């Protein structure tokens, strides 16, 4: 159960019954999946590049302390103020204090999953500061008071018609005959509103896709250019990034950039890739007067020495969710966590504890497509299994599963009794299947027969037929 009192089961039921969600999610399959496949096939060196990126990230994570300290030195030398936050609460407070010291009333925000992770907007609002999301998707979900449902496409769960309705509800200045049917018209409307916010903001907050140890640079990739306006126009720019975003060199950034947009949207590269090193210098035409970087741990350093370390290779491309049959069916909100999809199913228990989201690592058919498409080769199904094992070890698996598996184990280790049990099961199910050869309902199998028939067995087990064949062969 999450803070809003809903369970995973409730949310799944709601999601599956929502026709607008179904329509919106169909875009995931047609857009992201097809475009990524085309981008990948156009890059013959994909496999090598992915190996290179994995090795690079593994190396960085193995020496994370060294690279973080190097980053702090180079960033500080370039005029940045680097802050370290062990927890989300610390990061929120650091950011709040910087905003208060700047006398901020309004802050603009570029898209940041870490910002979502630490619930930054709520904290700023509670302290009288108005955060304005400037990424179109984030802007839309902020209007709706929702969490992002996707790492790179926060409003992917919505149809155009729903966004239009939200705009008309909130942007009360809109004349009723103003057309908002075309996506470009929606963008123009948001852009018009945001233009004023960009100019009025006292502080701009962005995330970072990379922190470059070599140069003290933070890097963001966007398609809307909102990140640039967020960080260049206000007097103060705050970067919030988690520790695993550090990377040794600019060359290394280039390696991962080649995989990032292709995996995410199928673009060769995102429209904007912005490198920020320190505040505005005397000769710079623009830029912030103050440049702060808040580096968040929030449990990640504890993952370093464990089997969870590969999770920290994640570059937040979203390919795992785009290709996940479960995500495609239920969308991001049903996960009830900041991070949805396969990466959320491992990152959520990793950050919040094994029991915080018990269903997430369980609710997957282990189809393995997430691992297949992950450019950083994170063994997502294996990590989900790791959390299932922890739940079992803590005796927190569901009672029905414990009993069922207990019986199965007992039988599987006793072939003679197993044989008898299977002989009677196959016969009983065959009889229940009748002449149609299938069951519409079976005792203890309601989960199966709620939505599909159970094909009936042929009536005899293979092992009985085989034994009979062997006997006949001896006789003949």
């Amino acid at each position, binding site marked *: 159960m999450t803070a809003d009192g809903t369970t995973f089961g409730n949310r*799944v*039921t709601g999601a*599956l019954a929502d026709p607008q969600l179904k329509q919106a999610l169909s875009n995931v*399959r047609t857009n992201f999946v097809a475009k990524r496949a085309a981008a990948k096939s156009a890059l013959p060196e994909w496999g090598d590049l992915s190996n290179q990126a994995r090795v690079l990230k593994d190396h960085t994570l193995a020496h994370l302390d060294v690279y973080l300290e190097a980053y702090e030195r180079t960033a500080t030398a370039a005029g940045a103020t680097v802050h370290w936050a062990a927890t989300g609460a610390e990061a929120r407070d650091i950011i709040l204090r910087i905003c208060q010291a700047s006398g901020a009333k309004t802050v603009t925000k570029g898209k940041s999953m870490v910002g979502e992770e630490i619930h930054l907007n709520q904290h700023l609002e509670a302290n009288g500061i108005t955060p304005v999301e400037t990424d179109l998707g984030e802007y839309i979900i902020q209007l709706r008071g929702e969490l992002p449902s996707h790492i790179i496409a926060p409003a992917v769960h919505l149809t155009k018609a729903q966004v239009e309705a939200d705009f008309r509800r909130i942007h009360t200045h809109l004349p009723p005959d103003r057309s908002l049917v075309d996506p470009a018209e929606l963008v123009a409307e948001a852009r018009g509103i945001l233009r004023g916010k960009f100019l009025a903001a006292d502080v701009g907050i962005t995330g970072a896709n990379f922190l470059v140890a070599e140069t003290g640079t933070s890097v963001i990739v966007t398609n809307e250019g909102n990140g640039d306006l967020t960080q260049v126009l206000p007097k103060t720019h705050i970067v919030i990034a988690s520790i695993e975003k550090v990377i040794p060199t600019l060359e290394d950034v280039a390696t991962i950039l080649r995989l990032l947009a292709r995996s995410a949207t199928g673009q060769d590269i995102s429209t904007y890739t912005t490198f920020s090193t320190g505040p505005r210098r005397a000769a710079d035409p623009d830029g912030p007067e103050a440049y702060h970087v808040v580096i968040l741990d929030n449990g990640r350093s504890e993952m370093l020495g464990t089997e969870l370390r590969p999770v920290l290779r994640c570059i937040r491309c979203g390919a795992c969710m785009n290709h996940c*049959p*479960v995500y*495609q*069916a239920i969308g991001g909100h049903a996960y009830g966590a900041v991070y949805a999809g396969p990466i959320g199913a491992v990152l959520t228990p990793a950050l919040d504890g094994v029991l915080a989201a018990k269903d997430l690592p*369980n609710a997957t*058919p*282990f*189809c*393995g*497509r997430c691992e297949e498409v992950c450019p950083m080769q994170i063994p997502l199904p*294996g990590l989900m299994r790791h*959390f*299932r*094992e*922890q739940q*079992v*070890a803590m005796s927190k*698996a569901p009672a029905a*599963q414990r009993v*069922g*598996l207990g019986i*199965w*184990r007992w*039988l*599987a*280790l006793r*072939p003679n009794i*197993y044989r008898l049990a*299977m002989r009677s*099961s*196959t016969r009983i*199910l065959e009889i229940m*299947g*009748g*002449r*149609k*050869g*299938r069951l*519409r309902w079976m005792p203890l*199998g309601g*989960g*199966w027969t*709620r*939505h*599909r*028939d*159970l*094909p*009936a067995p*042929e009536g*005899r*087990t*293979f*092992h009985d*037929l*085989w034994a009979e064949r062997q006997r006949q062969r001896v006789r003949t």
Partner: protein
Amino acid sequence: MSAAALPNAKRVALFVTCLVDVFRPSVGMAAVQLLEEAGCEVVVPPGQTCCGQPGYNSGDRPAAIAIARRVIEMLEPFEWVVIPSGSCGGMIRKHYPELFAGDATWAPRAKAVAGKTYELTAFLSHVLGVKSVAAHFPAHATYHDSCSALRELGLRSEPRQLLRSVQGLTITELTERDACCGFGGTFAVKYPDISNAIVEKKTADVMGTGADLLISADMGCLLNMAGKLKREGSSVHVRHIAEVLAGMVDLPAIGEGSAPS
């Protein structure tokens, strides 16, 4: 394809899988037929139950280890092991070595068994070099790759090449060839509504091909997709690849008894 074509007859242990044992023994018999026609001597090691996958995937590692040890001991004496399933094949080939990683005694034994264990179509194609079968099976079919055969074992061309040799059989591919059917073992029962949403997309894809026969190489996927197609009132027949390759035309399709459906 004949025994004479093979220089040395291979002695093959058939691990039939628990689902084939209970639900579709004909698949096991079809596998025996295909292997014998290719010149193998087929042995069915007694005492086989399950590969341990339900426990492994549910997080019950101790149960999976206990069962895997039994399976390893049982299969060690054989030169080759063949399984008519990508899922159980993947369990032994890929996951057994992981299960015993770091165990000085069992890791090498698990690895040795993994190395000689093959999914049926992989064994026919790669070890026996079978290029064609003698079967006649008139139908317009589509093929579902099980996730484990596709992604754990890397099998995509093997089943198709064998099916192409079946006389009378034409194949139209699914639109989403890489998509899961939503079975996922206990997932289908633990999260039936999500599983249903996934299999609905699969059956719609199947219907979209216009095929009258759906073929796959894993009993789990087949029970799931056949069960859904029958519930939807579809007339598409569902069969395991082994029965098609063995030409078992007269066997009622999965989920179809003696009565016309």
